[in-house]
């Protein structure tokens, strides 16, 4: 099957972001935390993307920021999906009290404003990247749980699942061989978005003082640091915002492509 152009663009860009994130230390022209220039300088040959609110090189911070942003967002989204989807499928296939307990527990977590949860959890636990990823992953897993349960409930009443049950297949077999392939499309679509929400969520936490510790930084945090210059068209705030948008679009282009692949894999007519 020929890869469409949009998917190719998405793959190349995503790959580029990953490359930058991995090799940040070698690529960044300046250190992440030293104020090398004036405040909010415009892009020049010395500072290719200008300088930020205290005169640090934007390009270097973007490059180092890619590392934290992509790593934390990816790790927490993967955690959220593994946890949320599996529990959601289990709830849907088992039904009965398992479903009730899991669903109400998730409702409980989701019903409490996440600001309060984040504040309480993060001010009680030590603040480091692992805790951050865990907290974000678990909070997000509740959203994934609801979606995957909703999708799976529809699938469990299908004839082929019934047939598998009658054949005497186990719960694991049904989840991974029957439900997962058939629920993949909405989940993949959701993953692309959850990843972006994770990027934005880190910045919200940074805003509360609970996010990434300096001297490290993330893109959302960079937008926030420089937000007052935004309406005056300074690159300091625009560049990280554009980086987030570019990452969002390329990851979702890839997700769209996988989506169309999974549809065709199932023997449907594809797209």
């Amino acid at each position, binding site marked *: 099957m020929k890869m469409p152009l949009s998917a190719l663009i998405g793959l190349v860009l995503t790959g580029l972001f990953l490359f930058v994130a991995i090799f940040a230390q070698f690529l960044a022209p300046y250190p992440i935390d030293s104020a090398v220039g004036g405040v909010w300088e415009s892009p020049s040959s010395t500072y290719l993307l200008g300088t930020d609110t205290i005169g640090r090189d934007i390009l270097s911070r973007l490059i180092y920021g890619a590392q934290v942003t992509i790593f934390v967002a990816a790790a927490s989204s993967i955690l959220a999906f593994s946890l949320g989807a599996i529990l959601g499928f289990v709830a849907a296939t088992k039904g009965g009290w398992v479903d009730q307990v899991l669903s109400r527990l998730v409702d409980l977590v989701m019903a409490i404003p996440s600001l309060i949860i984040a504040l309480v959890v993060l001010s009680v636990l030590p603040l480091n990247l692992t805790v951050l990823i865990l907290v974000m992953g678990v909070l997000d897993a509740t959203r994934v749980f609801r979606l995957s349960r909703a999708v799976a*409930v529809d699938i469990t009443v299908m004839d082929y699942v019934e047939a598998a049950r009658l054949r005497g297949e186990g719960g694991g077999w049904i989840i991974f061989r029957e439900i997962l392939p058939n629920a993949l499309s909405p989940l993949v679509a959701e993953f692309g978005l959850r990843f972006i929400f994770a990027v934005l969520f880190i910045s919200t936490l940074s805003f509360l003082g609970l996010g990434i510790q300096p001297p490290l930084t993330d893109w959302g945090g960079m937008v926030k640091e420089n937000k007052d210059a935004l309406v005056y068209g300074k690159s300091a705030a625009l560049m990280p915002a554009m980086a987030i948008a570019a990452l969002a*679009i390329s990851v979702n282009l890839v997700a769209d492509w996988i989506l169309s692949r999974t549809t065709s894999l199932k023997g449907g007519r594809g797209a």
Partner: protein
Amino acid sequence: MHPVLKLVAQRIALGLLLLLAVSAVIFLGVEALPGDTAQAILGQSATPQALANLREKMGLDQPAMVRYFHWLGGILTGDLGKALTNGQDIAQAIGQRLGNTLFLAACAGAISVPLAILLGLVAARYNGRWPDKLISGITLSTISLPEFVAAYFVIYLLTQLIPIFNPVAMVFPGMGFWEKLHAVALPVIVLVLVVLAHMMRMTRAAILNVMQSAYIETAELKGLSPMQVIWRHAFPNAIAPIVSVVVLNLAYLVVGVVVVEVVFGYNALGQFLVDHVAKRDLPVVQAVGVIFAGVYISLNILADVIAIVANPRLRHPR
């Protein structure tokens, strides 16, 4: 009793139980946060003497359990009490702000939900062709903007370049309906931009997912137009995940829009909650938390019911 009605009754009962649990969890959580109301009010000017005096005045010297059950007793008799920080009547203070929260959410929801579903259907219809790509590209860029960035762009564009709206979106009792609409225009635009993509993409994905089923092929063979096939056959079968995501976003419009409220100075519940968490004003945090939880739980019950009613197979569980 009809099985659906029975289920609804069951869910409502469970929901009330859940509300109780939420109130307890919030109470424990805020209690666990370091600092208390007295410290938070006096802030930098706290002297031990003033702290002790204020704690006594607000009843903070009593054990936590006593305060929780006191609050619970109050709420069961319909008395939300008074705010610790400024002595305002909580029910009164919340009443107006809840109205504002619901007004904003309703405006944003009324625009974004139909628009998202329509765009999702169109994108699915033209899957892989340019309308699909255009819709996906635009919604993806709006969703990847942090909320405040979208808000600042809108402020810049619609209050400075083309000055047709005011940057501060406060609404007051006594304002007419159209006046209110004009005031909230900017936050509504921002919220629509923020929630549109999520619902639109889920609609598209869910429709595409059911498009390969055998009955869709049958419908196509019957000679129905692509849009008819999608609307009449694919959409009803894709409704569960769509409703699930729509509900998530509606709940978000009610409980999660603090940033937008702050930027536009909109006087609704989110900002109110954040202020009172910062001051550890438990009676207010509890009241708002329970309201938010109530909104969330009822929306979910609604979503489950819609999913069951829409899917004939779920209507008669085996």
